[in-house]
């Protein structure tokens, strides 16, 4: 994968424009539809599609650095890793090799910074945080970040955002329809009339 492809997938969107939302080059929407059965797999605790247990543990620890568990649930509770596995086995399959290379590199960084250790997930949380600071500009971390955000906020049908944990964090309450007033200021205006 080239860096240009990474930046596409990064969909950082430096502007607020719809036009700068990033777009994955996917094979076909049908591939995405196939990923929508992910919830069932996650509920049954079936084995991961493409990730080894070891890879999944490391990636989940990285996702938990992005959305830590504190007073509210984070990436772990949202099941982001199940989303990642499903994505890397389907519409994001082209990213799997880069993710694996990145995990190998991460392991080397762990070993050189913490002699004797070799697993990121086994480090104390604060040591993990400091390591993420070292890699936050890498294309590997951009990929992990992109997938983590998707796993946190995409429809739960894709296997992440369990119990709508991501949406609840934002205060997004998806209902099929809403009635006014919608927010504080339009309610205030209505009441003042």
């Amino acid at each position, binding site marked *: 994968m080239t860096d240009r492809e990474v930046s596409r997938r990064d969909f950082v969107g430096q502007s607020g*424009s719809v036009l700068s939302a990033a777009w994955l080059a996917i094979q076909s929407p049908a591939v995405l539809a196939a990923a929508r059965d992910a919830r069932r797999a996650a509920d049954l605790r079936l084995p991961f599609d493409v990730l080894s247990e070891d890879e999944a543990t490391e990636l989940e620890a990285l996702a938990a650095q992005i959305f830590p568990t504190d007073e509210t649930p984070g990436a772990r509770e949202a099941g982001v890793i199940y989303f990642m596995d499903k994505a890397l086995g389907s519409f994001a399959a082209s990213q799997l090799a880069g993710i694996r290379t990145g995990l190998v590199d991460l392991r080397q960084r762990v070993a050189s910074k913490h002699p004797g250790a070799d697993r990121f997930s086994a480090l104390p949380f604060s040591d993990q945080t400091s390591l993420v600071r070292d890699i936050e500009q890498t294309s590997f971390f951009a990929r992990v970040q992109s997938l983590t955000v998707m796993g946190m906020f995409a429809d739960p049908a894709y296997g992440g955002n369990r119990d709508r944990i991501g949406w609840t964090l934002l205060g997004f309450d998806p209902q099929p329809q809403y009635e006014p007033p*919608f927010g504080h200021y*339009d309610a205030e205006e209505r009441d003042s009339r």
Partner: protein
Amino acid sequence: MQEARGRHFATRDEVDFVVIGSGAAGGVIAKELSTAGFDVVVLEQGPYLPPTAFGHDELAEFQFGELMGSPADFPTTFRANEADEAHVTGGIALFYARLVGGSSVHFTANFWRLHEIDFIERSRWGPISGTGFADWPITYAELEPYYTKVDWEIGVSGAPGPFDPPRSRPYPMPPLPVKSSGILLERGARKLGLRPFPAPMAILSQAFAGRPACINCGFCLGFGCEVGAKSSTLAAMIPLAEATGRCEIRAESTVFRIAHDEAGRAREVVYWDRDGVEHAQRTKAVVLSANGAESARLLLESASSMYPNGLANSSGTVGKYLMFNGLSYAHGYFEHPLNEYKSVQVTRLLHDFYDSDPRRGFYGGGGIDGRWQYYPLWFANAGLPPDAPRWGAAYKRMLSEYFNYTMMTNGHTTSLPVASNSVSLDPSVKDKWGRQAIRVTYHDHADDLAMMQFLLDRGKEILDAAGAKRVWETPVAPQTNGAHLLGTCRMGNDSRESVVDRYHRAHDVPNLFVCDGSSFVTSGRGQPTMTIMALAFRAADHIARFARRGEI
């Protein structure tokens, strides 16, 4: 996939019209011509989707642009200047939907009319060097009856505003319910002496023409409307066209050539079906409404020994004068929840800066709307201020604090017609059909950038005056993509300087009409779809008259 309900024509049947494209223009023209008694085949490259296909799946429908087609299948290349080599960029250079109904299905449904001034600015301000700044060959008064037709046939909600051009009939229904972003825009703007008003939207505030009112679900921008309250041609026009029994919507039909006879008249429209099998539909006349990028591309692609520069291109202007409209964004964070994810994106706007004003020192004008246009994933990626953390507890906390407490002002502005801003055929990149990809060359004129900055600054002042606790901006920069695809087959009276005449007939090919965003001579101030539909109603009216009189 929707079952075709209209009539079926054989490709060997010579139909009265082939309409290429079923979007804002093509959908209207198909309905008007079939209602007028003509046999019409609509060739649409995308699928024919039922409303049940439209949901709220941000990942599939929005982030991956399910309605737009994969950028891997349809790459577009971009360069800022003609001297550069174009490349496939990290994003999408041209945003449009590929399905029956076209981009009228996924648009935000802001629905401004042009003002009288838009049609006559060259006369008003004189030439602007380095541009093809020109008057339109028609006036607002000539188009007004068709704007009103759009209001009443498509379904538009709104209320009169202080800067409105004259209208012959009131809006068919009141504005949509105001949101907190609308109230805050009003408060801030009024403090500054400005005059905000309800945003006209092509979304039903009341049941209309057998379609239900908006349910305020909030998924307009980039999504299809599952209840049909958004006034797309898919919801409002296509069913009427099919009901005539004279119109066939032939979906998943990708046109790649308009073929002509020895006399130079369009004769057949050649396309691939979904399996890539080539067909040629015989026809008496062609209406090309494929959008401001695709229409120009198809004319260029239809070059022949008789028309070596492309069909209808003796002027050399096919593909040139591409205009995106300018966009600028200010963001405000407020004390109380706005819950802007609910309901339509925009409910209030202002046109105080619509006209150009020489005192500003540059040409340009525009409007500012109050809005919020994020969905959860998009917000997590792009909704926070630029200095916000990107990961960790602070990022997580900030997402939680900001999601329901922010709004934006969008500045929508003029783009000058610059000949080098264009769509053309890329010499090396191919799409999934093996066609040359569309190449975009675009760099905003200095006046356009100045106008974007001007409205960005006004937007920040409005947010400040509305009591925002924090205001930030998206810095103005030359645009590298666009959703408003305007100007590439411009209308004009002079066949040396334009592609179509005032009735949208190609100067060079008497039975070929081109009507869509490509027809625009100047850009307006943003929100072109209302004008595209009005042009389409007007074009269809004249085309039907020509056909009845045997003048095609």
